[in-house]
């Protein structure tokens, strides 16, 4: 194994360990959420989905914002590490979006009576998911590394700027179309056990994000190193 490939493998290993720790933390969150927090009187057990859904949404949006920031920086600095990071963050973002888009409707159905509503949060999360998919599809379709990096960066930046417009559209739509009052899932003031669990869960999901992105970054780095040594051979 070449030096570069070995370094990449080291990064991957660190990522796998960190995300493994994250998964252990996730188990802890499960225990906290299921055992330690009280059952919400109005919503019942299903409310506890909240402790997974909200942190997943946070992680997905974090991933998405970082893709945007890395894209801007890449077009400015042209550092391939930024492009590699953006690609890793996008893939991990899709994973968290998946969690968010599955837990969301599963939570909504018992609480709101419907699998889906076009409210601001859900609509935004759906669009972020589609933007991720488009981003990854484009990357898969472009073979030249430099071109792929440039194109992805443009999509990343445009995508980041689209989000406020989606938000504005939904806001305008809802203010001009009065919707029936729906039962809002989050209580106005969270009891301390709920707040603690939510914060712990958010921390765990952030650790998972960091671990996954590190591992994914390392895997890309390793692939590139192996391809270079193959070309050189």
């Amino acid at each position, binding site marked *: 194994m070449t030096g570069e490939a070995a370094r990449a493998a080291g990064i991957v290993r660190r990522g796998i360990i960190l995300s493994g720790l994250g998964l252990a933390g996730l188990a802890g969150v499960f225990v906290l959420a299921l055992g330690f927090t009280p059952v919400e009187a109005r919503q019942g057990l299903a409310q506890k989905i909240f402790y997974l859904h909200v942190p997943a949404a946070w992680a997905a949006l974090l991933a998405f914002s970082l893709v945007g920031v890395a894209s801007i920086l890449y077009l400015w600095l042209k550092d391939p590490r930024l492009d590699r990071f953006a690609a890793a963050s996008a893939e991990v973002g899709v994973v968290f979006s998946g969690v968010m888009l599955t837990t969301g409707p599963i939570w909504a159905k018992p609480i709101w009576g419907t699998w889906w509503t076009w409210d601001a949060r859900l609509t935004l999360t759906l669009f972020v998911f589609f*933007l991720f998919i488009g981003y990854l599809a484009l990357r898969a379709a472009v073979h030249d590394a430099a071109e792929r990096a440039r*194109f992805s960066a*443009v*999509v990343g930046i*445009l995508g980041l*700027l689209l989000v406020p417009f*989606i938000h504005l559209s939904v806001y*305008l*739509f809802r203010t001009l179309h009065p919707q029936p009052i729906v039962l809002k899932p989050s209580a106005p003031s969270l009891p301390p056990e709920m707040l603690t669990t939510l914060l712990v869960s958010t921390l765990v999901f952030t650790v998972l994000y960091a671990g996954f992105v590190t591992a994914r970054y390392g895997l890309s780095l390793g692939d590139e190193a192996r391809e270079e040594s193959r070309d050189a051979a």
Partner: protein
Amino acid sequence: MPDSLRLALVIAGKDIRGELRSRTALQSALVFSALVLVVFNFARDPTALSATDLAPSVLWVTFALAAMVALNRAFTVERENSALDGLLLAPVPREALFLGKLLANLAFVGTVELVTLPLFVLFFNVSLGHALPGLLGVTALATIGFVAVGTIFSAMAVRTRFAELMLPVLLLPFMVPPLIAAVQVTSRLLADRPLSEMWGWLRLLALYDIVFVTLCMLAFTAVVDE
């Protein structure tokens, strides 16, 4: 007139003349929108929803789909002729190049929309009357927005293997805000609602256009240059 703008008009003129000669993009898009309108007409149950409720959505979905067909064809034709390569070798400022492409695409898509509109009135029996100027205005605003993003994305998509699939996948999320706004304004125009009800949406459209035309113009160089 500043050089860049004159250059953009020259580039746009060249593309438009080329399209007028071959008519590939226009023909595909026009046939496509006629077909879409026919399908919508047969697909809906006339007793369930009145034409006026559905009309704005149908019109804009048709415009959006036809725009994608036009954008795709326009860039594919150009790639086949390798016309862009020659332009790139010349010291043409990339912003002017983008603007020229944008203007040409706007001319194509605008033509498709102008022809689709009477077809729409015909098939759906909608009365436009004094809504027409407003309708033309909102159509222009929304079209500028999604054609700007469409121009830069089709420049990218055409360099990939599955260009016809890549463009919609990339572009559709970006079409949503202008489409929502356009449908909202159109439905209010057709219902003779006062301007105050449309103001928010029109501002959104204007803001979208300013932000994305500027951004796409600046980003164009990253797409066409090595």
